[in-house]
């Protein structure tokens, strides 16, 4: 129908990720993140109640579910931005319970936020440099002696420019991040997260508020992460995106995991359709509302 685009060639899906039958809490062949009995209540409301969850290494996993299902809360718990009422979880074998957010990030697990946190008062390049790890100049006493960190700064800048080029943000490098459009800021946040060479990238609704046309380039970047050997976990509502790039899907509802599996299988699951997808998923609403008589007939 439209001109052939690189994305039209269906991306290589990774299979064989699970051990046994696909069901909530199923073990993975090579998990990078393992969580046990994680729970969080807000007042009387159960926000998260996950018995067991394993995220497969080197694959792209989608976390879907209705609003209020606990997806962002689970993200916050796993990355140290919130404290659970109970539960343990480990990242590449290291126990993370009680580890503060900044330590989790420096261990290789980076996250983005639903409401983009591109730092508007810094330039694009400054944002990128801030993402780098182990810059000696960031320590108080060493910072007043530029000769101690100038070389590192140059190396960091080189890396930043290279990543910015890949994300097509290079010519905006000296602009304040506040002057970028919403979609560009999302790209910047993702690019910035890559500066520390993470092993696990967690994206919270990366497509929210981005035009459909820009969505494709964002998807390519996410697929690129997998090609480079990183593991991706993302929360999304856009089912087309999920179907297109996710190797594995985890469905949450009311704080619990109600289904797990490859995208096609999960989307046919009755519980998932009822709670989340709706029965009109692939139907033209014009037909449902009776505004058009037949799909192919024009008014």
């Amino acid at each position: 129908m439209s001109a052939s685009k690189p994305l039209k060639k269906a991306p290589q899906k990774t299979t064989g990720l699970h051990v046994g039958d696909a069901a909530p809490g199923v073990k993975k062949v090579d998990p990078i993140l393992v969580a046990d009995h994680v729970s969080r209540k807000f007042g009387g409301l159960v926000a998260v109640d996950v018995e067991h969850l394993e995220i497969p290494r080197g694959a792209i996993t989608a976390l879907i579910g209705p609003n209020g299902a606990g997806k962002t809360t689970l993200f916050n718990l796993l990355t140290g931005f919130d404290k659970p009422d109970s539960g343990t979880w480990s990242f590449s074998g290291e126990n993370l319970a009680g580890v503060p957010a900044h330590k989790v990030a420096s261990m290789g697990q980076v996250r983005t936020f639903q409401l983009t946190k591109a730092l508007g008062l810094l330039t694009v390049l400054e944002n990128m440099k801030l993402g780098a790890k182990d810059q000696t100049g960031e320590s108080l006493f060493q910072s007043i002696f530029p000769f101690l960190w100038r070389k590192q700064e140059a190396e960091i800048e080189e890396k930043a420019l290279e990543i910015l080029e890949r994300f097509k943000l290079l010519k905006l490098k000296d602009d304040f991040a506040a002057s970028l459009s919403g979609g560009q800021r999302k790209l910047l946040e993702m690019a910035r997260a890559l500066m520390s060479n993470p092993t696990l990238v967690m994206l919270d609704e990366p497509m929210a508020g981005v035009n459909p046309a820009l969505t494709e380039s964002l998807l390519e970047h996410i697929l690129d992460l997998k090609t480079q050997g990183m593991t991706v976990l993302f929360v999304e509502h856009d089912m087309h995106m999920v179907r297109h790039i996710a190797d594995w899907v985890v469905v949450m509802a009311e704080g619990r995991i109600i289904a797990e599996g490859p995208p096609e299988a999960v989307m046919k699951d009755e519980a998932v359709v009822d709670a989340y997808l709706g029965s009109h998923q692939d139907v033209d609403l014009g037909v449902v509302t009776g505004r058009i008589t037949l799909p192919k007939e024009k008014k």
Partner: protein
Amino acid sequence: MADEKNVVVNVDNLVAGYLPGVNILNGCNLIAREGELIGIIGPNGAGKSTLLKAIFGQSKVREGAVYLNGENITGLKADKLVERGVGYVPQNNNVFPSLTIEENLQMGVYQKPDKYDEGLELVTSLFSELGARLKQRAGSLSGGERQMVAMGRALMMNPSVLLLDEPSAGLSPVRQDEAFLRVSDINKAGVTTIMVEQNARRCLQICDRGYVLDQGKDAVTGSGRDLLNDPKVIELYLGSLGA
């Protein structure tokens, strides 16, 4: 034919913006006829929300005019527009979380409290679930339910024109479909409806006519179906994953 029906909302070459010297709308035009469901789509920053806000007197109009049933309403404050039968459903912060659903609906008829019973009947006939939970605190509702309450509140004055800013934003697929179906039902009940949307596909599937905004101007316009199938619109705005 459709062209003979009255023009209810007429936006004429509108130039508007927020910061001094920076215009978001650069000569935007739009027409909504009686009983039509109009969709406004387009990239971020194109001015969709600004257009809606400019119609409702919430953003500075620098050039051009907005007409309601022939009357020039450019720059009129929101309360005057509500008096004239215009309803507005903002995207965020659209319910009072500390008030019950009933109280939220009562806020809808603030200008004419004696219209409450009439309005309540209309709203509960369209959204039966609201009628069953009138005493529930709006803050305890989910995103999709709040959406419903916000729409209901705007309908309490029985408006002739309804403006909606991204009614499906942040909702899961099943709730998004419900929101679109609700908008369609409202429009079928006789309300001229103008909706701004990010979910272009769904929006165009139900609207009579659509406007694609780009850089503050109405770049492409046509019937909903025509736009859905227009290859240029698909390439630039809908994205090829939509099918």
